[in-house]
């Protein structure tokens, strides 16, 4: 089959590789009909996530048709149309039972590696480095799905791929980011980053009852989408002093909750920007947390900072004093996608959200390398790329 393989920073290639096989009784094989490139994939593409190996198959947002099931999979049959959640979860362990699926204790074959870097291991993830299992991903024609009796969501209606594909990751991720803000009537939520995750966080914040959402980015097309599709007030951080502007907009108090949908590769100017860039380049810090620092400083006293953005390791100049002295709460995590798939599918069915609006580019799987480059460089107003194998 054809698959998108990682070979190094800014080097992905579509190669012919062997077809995946059933390896465990609870596996299934999916013939992929649609798959997407995620902001998370850019962290791999830019070489910021350790433990990638040349030849790794990328992709964690995918859907398609079941073509084979393992002997222990009883709830799916060949021909079923499914969306696959990006975290791999067993459904049996303590964390799965608590619906903390991305913390599944049983799905990361390389848990030892994660334990060394992070103390404990999270779940396995498709196409997301060896730290989270080294599982072959879904930017391919076929993918093997472990614990297929737990993860994949059957789509039994006429919704199009583009309407349901993002149940695999970014829609639940935006949703959980907003849910973590514990939104009450009258709340103002600020969202850093107007990529797809930010866009869905904006939508979700309104659906969860936010009074106002303020969106921050620098790309006009992304800000436009946040305003026109999401109904957010928007702010270009290159044109205003974000902290001052947020105070001005919130009567001096600051947003009730702040969402960092930017993460480890935040872009910033000035001394701190240069500082982070050099430190990250030289591997003296693994993450560039400019947006997170700002989100913490901006948040109102006693507010919540929700971090859907992915961080890999260690950061410098973290404003812990601000966090502590002002009673802030941080909520974060890889999304517990399984928990949100069905309720969000129902919202899609009811027409409350049509997630397809973030898609700007549709390409063939063969064009994945161009898709990556375009998304990375934000060329052609690229916001979300969907690949068709």
């Amino acid at each position: 089959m054809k698959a998108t393989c990682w070979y190094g920073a800014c080097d992905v290639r579509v190669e012919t590789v062997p077809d995946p096989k059933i390896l465990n009784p609870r596996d299934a094989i999916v013939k992929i009909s649609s798959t997407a490139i995620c902001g998370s994939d850019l962290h791999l593409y830019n070489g910021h996530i350790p433990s990638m190996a040349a030849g790794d198959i990328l992709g964690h947002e995918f859907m398609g048709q079941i073509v084979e099931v393992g002997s222990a999979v009883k709830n799916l049959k060949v021909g079923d149309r499914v969306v696959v959640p990006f975290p791999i979860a067993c459904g049996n362990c303590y964390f799965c039972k608590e619906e903390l699926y991305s913390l599944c204790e049983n799905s990361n074959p390389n848990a030892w590696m994660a334990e060394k870097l992070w103390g404990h291991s999270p779940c396995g993830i498709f196409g997301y480095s060896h730290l989270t299992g080294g599982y072959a991903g879904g930017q391919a024609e076929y993918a093997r799905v472990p614990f297929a009796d737990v993860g994949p969501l059957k789509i039994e209606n006429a919704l199009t791929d583009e309407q349901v594909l993002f149940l695999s990751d970014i829609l639940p991720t935006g949703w959980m980011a907003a849910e973590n803000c514990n939104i009450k009537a009258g709340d103002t939520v600020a969202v850093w980053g107007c990529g797809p995750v930010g866009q869905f966080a904006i939508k979700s914040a309104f659906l969860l009852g936010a009074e106002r959402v303020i969106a921050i980015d620098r790309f006009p097309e992304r800000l436009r989408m946040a305003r026109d599709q999401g109904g957010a007030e928007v702010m270009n951080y290159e044109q205003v002093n974000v902290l001052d502007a947020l105070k001005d907009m919130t009567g001096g108090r600051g947003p009730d909750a702040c969402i960092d949908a930017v993460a480890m590769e935040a872009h910033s100017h000035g001394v701190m920007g240069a500082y982070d860039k050099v430190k990250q380049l030289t591997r003296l810090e693994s993450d560039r947390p400019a947006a997170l620092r700002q989100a913490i400083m901006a948040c109102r006293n006693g507010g919540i900072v929700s971090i859907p953005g992915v961080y890999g390791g260690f950061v410098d100049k973290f404003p812990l004093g601000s966090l502590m002295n002002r009673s802030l709460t941080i909520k974060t995590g890889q999304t517990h996608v399984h928990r949100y798939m069905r309720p969000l599918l129902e919202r899609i069915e009811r027409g409350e959200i049509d997630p397809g609006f973030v898609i700007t580019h549709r390409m063939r799987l063969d064009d994945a390398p161009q898709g990556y480059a375009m998304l990375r460089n934000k060329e052609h107003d690229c916001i979300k790329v969907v690949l068709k194998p």
Partner: protein
Amino acid sequence: MEDSMQESQQGLPPSLRGSNRAEPRVVRSGRRSANDGGGNGTQPERLASSVADSLKNIDEKRLAQALGWFRVALGVAEVMAPRQLGKAIGFDRHPGFMRAVGLREIASGIGIITQPQQPERLWSRVAGDAVDLALLGVAINSGRSHRGRLVAATAAVAGVAALDIYCNRQLSRHGASGSDSGSQQPLRERVTVTASPEECYRLWRNVESFPRFMRYVESVQETGGGQSHWRVKAPGGTTVEWDSKITADETNRMLAWESLPGAAIDNRGCVRFEPAPGGRGTIVSVEMSYAPPAGRTGTIAAKLTGEEPQQRVHDDLRRFKQLIETGEIPTTEGQPAGRRGAVLSLLWKRRVE
């Protein structure tokens, strides 16, 4: 020996005192599985066993000192001649960075030399090595630097990292005072399993099921009277074998075992099954000790598996949990991939086979 047997029958396996024991009976099996690359074993296997070999006779505290001095020297070189050193390893674009790394290197080297008994110091080094490895890995991938030299440099850092880890393990295990190398603390591992003590006990009592969750155990056969025969994989396509017997058996609570005299690797251990608080399943704890021949702490066990015994028991326990909870053990072995680069997979993969 008499004493310790008795103790273990009370379910308290003691640490074994080093004594004269037979050399391990190493069996050349000649048989290799189809996908292990053939030859003299996989690269990580060779790396691990050669590190283990070269460390056999090194006293750990001297090793720590030597490592410390090596770091200081490296640091001085990085500070004084960042460009030249950068050139030598193929990373010459950032002399300022080289200097910064050098300063860190000196500081940590001095830390190690002045406080050799503080394992935390060395662990900070291990973390530093991990960062360096990541750096070099990325530089290799970035394609901007000279790959060949970078690969060599990565190998060198990986070597130092392996030494750091080994040395730290040893210091941690022996405790701050550093005991004589003939004795060994038993290693302990535990895991919480979402299952009843009965289920956990049942799987553990069935010794023939061990190969399902013990990665390096090839087979265990019950030979009657609570005894069993073990075949365990070792690097280089070899296996070692021994006989073992159950020395204590409390249904649903505890099992203890001990190898019979003449075993290739003298070992004993016990496993306990205790209900976790709040009805959250069962805490399974294993306590084990190995006695390598001629009292060479650690090396044989490391040689046996190409990795730390502690880590191996930890991983086996996790697999035990996975098997009970999910009915299978997660794996990626046999999945597709694009063409692999040898060096990178050497850094991240850690397998005997």
